[in-house]
């Protein structure tokens, strides 16, 4: 593993290794001294061309907990607003001696371009690129933290496995991903990762919010949330944020009204009651309370939304460790 660009690149063994490493990282985060010396002297650049709160803070926390130096770069207030290109920004970062670049970009494929263009050096001297969300393409660390959270709660069932399910995959876990799949890189990342780990995924969305070509994805689809909840009895329900900022025509272009969306696809108390008692409710955040998820559902005992944030730090620590700790020449996972 030289870069973390897409969950499609991860084999099952690699994914389980990331989750197991994250479990050990999570264990260190309950200590009084949370900082580890592992990545001392290495530099991680957070390169954010798009707004983000939790992902940027999460990556920053993860890198700092591993003693790496962190440089934050956001497009606002930088030379990018003066028209600097991605290439020139990358060359600058390379000249400053970055060891890893965490990139979020509005354009799908920007992290791939950074990783393979040679702008950040190549061969032995390569800089690891971590995709922190690119356009509507991928957000691999979010999918990994979702899988980690599911494994913790659902593998071994009742109360979760004693050791957080270390070593196991998600075989047989039934997941429903509900909402704005069209604009969601979280959904794309999750569908591939969860399938790799052996889970069954069903996407539930209005026809206008399912992308063209979804039938080629390794999952099933449905237009009816009530029917999916009743028939499949999912172990985990992941609500997606309705991404109004990506809906150029305003919300009205994809569904008649927010109220109708909430009635047909929102997770409320009635739908919550349809779920098996062990089911967990997930949301990648930030939530539109009252639109895709009601306050009752977001604050219910089965909700793991806050825990997802905490697990995000552990998963990102694992990703940084696996990409940066080994020899720079041949960084294999094992």
């Amino acid at each position: 593993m030289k870069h973390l660009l897409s969950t499609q690149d991860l084999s099952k063994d690699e994914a389980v290794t990331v989750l197991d490493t994250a479990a050990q990282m999570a264990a260190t985060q309950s200590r009084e001294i949370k900082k580890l010396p592992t990545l001392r002297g290495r530099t991680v650049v957070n390169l954010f061309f798009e707004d983000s709160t939790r992902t940027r803070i999460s990556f920053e926390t993860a890198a700092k907990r591993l003693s790496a130096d962190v440089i934050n770069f956001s497009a606002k207030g930088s030379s990018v607003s003066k028209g600097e290109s991605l290439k020139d920004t990358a060359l600058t970062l390379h000249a400053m001696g970055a060891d890893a670049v965490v990139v979020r970009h509005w354009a799908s494929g920007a992290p791939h371009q950074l990783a393979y263009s040679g702008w950040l050096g190549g061969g032995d001297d390569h800089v690891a690129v971590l995709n922190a969300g690119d356009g509507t393409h991928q957000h691999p660390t979010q999918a990994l933290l979702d899988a980690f959270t599911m494994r913790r709660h659902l593998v071994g069932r009742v109360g979760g496995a004693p050791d957080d399910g270390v070593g196991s995959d998600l075989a047989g876990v039934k997941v429903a991903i509900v909402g704005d799949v069209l604009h969601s890189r979280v959904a794309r990342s999750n569908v591939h990762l969860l399938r790799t780990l052996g889970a069954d995924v069903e996407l539930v969305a209005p026809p206008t919010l399912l992308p063209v070509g979804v039938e080629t994805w390794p999952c099933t689809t449905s237009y009816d949330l009530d029917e999916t909840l009743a028939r499949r009895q999912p172990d985990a329900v992941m609500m997606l944020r309705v991404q109004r900022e990506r809906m150029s025509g305003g919300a009205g272009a994809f569904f008649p009204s927010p109220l109708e969306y909430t009635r047909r696809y929102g997770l409320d108390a009635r739908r919550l009651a349809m779920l098996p008692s062990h089911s967990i409710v997930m949301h990648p955040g930030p939530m539109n309370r009252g639109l895709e998820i009601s306050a009752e559902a977001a604050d219910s005992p089965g909700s793991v939304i806050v825990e997802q944030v905490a697990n995000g730090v552990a998963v990102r620590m694992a990703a940084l460790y696996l990409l940066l700790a080994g020899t720079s020449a041949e960084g294999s996972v094992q």
Partner: protein
Amino acid sequence: MSSGVPSLTTVLGAEEIQRALTRIAHEVVERSKGAADVVLLGIPTRGVTLAHRLAERLAAIDPAFDPAVALGDLDVTMYRDDLRRNPTRAVGPTTLPPAGIDDKIVVLVDDVLYSGRTIRAALDAISDLGRPRAVRLACLVDRGHRELPIRPDFVGKNLPTSTEERVSVRLHEVDGQDAVVIAGRGADEGSAR
């Protein structure tokens, strides 16, 4: 990991390992004036197994020692100084006794003591986990060639070796047999860490 190399010499057999561990257990009790405050921390992989065996013996010698609350595993991977020289290592679990290690006498348990770098990493890890009253070091084999000012308190056997040789400890729980084996010259890398 150690097969196929010519001239394997077994330097300790199963019974000698048992006797060495029993002696170390008595020395630990003697040195600490009882085993009430002793916490054993095994360093993965085989140090963990050795720590479990030592714990059984300590409990037999001094009933005040309860393995359930005085035995742990200490993974030092994230504290190593050679991470960048090797392919990425898997991080193992660290488990501490429920009461922690503050004001306890921590005895680190490892299989082979060689350069001392693993113990250096373990000392750093311990200082992040608490403040023990004392830290001591028990190892089954001391093969010399220290690269740091570190010495063991309890040694199963001193084994003068050349750096060309590879010393491996095999334990029943991990390898199916109890033995300490030296593989002769021609081996490419040291297995003893």
